[in-house]
């Protein structure tokens, strides 16, 4: 076994004639945090949705734990341990907070650990335990984001993808959520991919980064060695 957990090779994806991801390659190491940055419309979300099985690639390959998972359906990819927290803290709004979380234990492999994981999620997010019977639709944006993270954690994933987790949240809540992401990474050794608009925060949190522009990965490297000038050029394509 190599220490690479997720490997994306030359992936292409689009919507009809529109090419959203135009040859993207990316690697995530076991226990690593990778930041995926880029302007709106660069193809970050499409790339990660394709990896998670929500979108079908037109070509290219995705390997997870040295096993090809390209174009598997989303439910089978989750069962293998790769989980995506979609943009905007999407929850099952008509279901209670606890039922939302329990949905994360749906894969058969996760069910026997459901009780322990529920306790773990409530330990990470004590607020959620207070409101476990409330419908998720009544929660604030930050709380909904916590429910979405908790739901993904319930399946004990080995790799977690967060799509613009800080979008529309207050700075205090963002700090809280980032602290918890780091805890998850450290305590469970979960690899993490952060899609983020906030470049500074993304680089501070991650070990490695990738910059996408017009569907291509235009720059990558170690987060603490990045040259701001090169990054700016790659980011805006100037």
């Amino acid at each position: 076994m190599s220490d690479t957990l997720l490997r994306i090779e030359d992936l292409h994806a689009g919507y009809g004639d529109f090419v959203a991801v135009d040859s993207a390659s990316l690697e995530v190491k076991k226990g690593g945090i990778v930041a995926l940055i880029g302007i709106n419309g660069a193809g970050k979300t499409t790339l990660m949705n394709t990896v998670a099985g929500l979108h079908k690639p037109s070509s290219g390959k995705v390997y997870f734990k040295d096993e090809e998972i390209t174009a598997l359906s989303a439910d089978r990819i989750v069962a293998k341990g790769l989980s995506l927290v979609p943009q905007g803290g999407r929850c099952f709004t008509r279901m209670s907070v606890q039922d939302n979380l329990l949905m994360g234990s749906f894969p058969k492999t996760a069910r026997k650990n459901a009780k322990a994981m529920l306790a773990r999620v409530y330990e990470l997010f004590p607020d959620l335990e207070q409101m476990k019977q409330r419908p998720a639709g009544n929660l604030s944006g930050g709380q909904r984001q916590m429910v979405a993270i908790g739901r993904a954690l319930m399946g004990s994933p080995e790799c977690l993808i967060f799509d613009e987790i800080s979008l529309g949240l207050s700075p205090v809540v963002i700090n809280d959520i980032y602290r918890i992401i780091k805890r998850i990474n450290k305590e469970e050794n979960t690899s993490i991919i952060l899609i983020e608009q906030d470049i500074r925060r993304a680089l501070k949190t991650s070990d490695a980064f990738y910059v996408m522009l017009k569907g291509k990965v235009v720059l990558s490297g170690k987060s603490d060695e990045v040259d701001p000038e090169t990054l700016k050029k790659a980011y805006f394509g100037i």
Partner: protein
Amino acid sequence: MYIAQILVNGILLGSVYALLGIGMTMIFGIVKLTNLAHGEFVVLGAYLSTVLAPLLGIDPILTLAITVPLMFILGFLLQYGLIGRAMKKGSEPALLVTFGLSIILQDGMLMIFSADARHIPVPYSKDTIKIGALEISVLHLVLFAISLIAILLLSLFLRNTYMGRAIRATADDADVAALSGVNINRVYAIAMGIAMASAAVAGLCVGMKWTYDPSVGGNYLLIAFVVVVIGGMGSVPGTLVAGILFGMAQVIGGASYGLLISYILLLLVLIFKPKGIFGK
């Protein structure tokens, strides 16, 4: 006393109307599909019970042990192999497939069972019991018990099991459900199986209460439709309340005005609460 009698009869019969709507509302809420074959599913359930009871020499109610699993499997396969495929092309093709199914089922039943009106006979169909000044039909009590148990079991299943939660989650946001590890196509197939199993139970009730023939499916589709819209699509408690309201309308209006009253009710709901009494 007259009002109490109406209330009781409306509630008892209303549970059957609610049961008619339950299968429809599940498909609306979960698969996001208007199942135009639901009425024929109900009639098919009625025929199965009518034929099986004398054949096996058992009480008609006991035929549910066969018809419910049988119709569940049929619904599962129909969704997985046929309707689900059409859904990939969009919602209109899927709608047309259910319309085609309703015609095929209707003509198929006409070929096999002829156009003669049938009925599921039960020995207690004329019996009544008196509670104070109230006179209650035993048949209505039995139908009420069957419908309520069926709806209660379904609610418990949806509330407390992993698959039940997955069904509710899929109704809420199918993408996120898939990201939680749910096989959406399988959930759709199970939902259609449950809808058809509920139609088996509704068919038994309908066959015990009224006479039927292969052409009456459309009437039951219409009733299910009204109940579902009044109650709010996809809501189980809403369907129960709407079924009872519909039942009251039938009892108050009788054969001449019952449907008229329920359509006026439907219009009022559409004007003042277009998503239904329990709709969100």
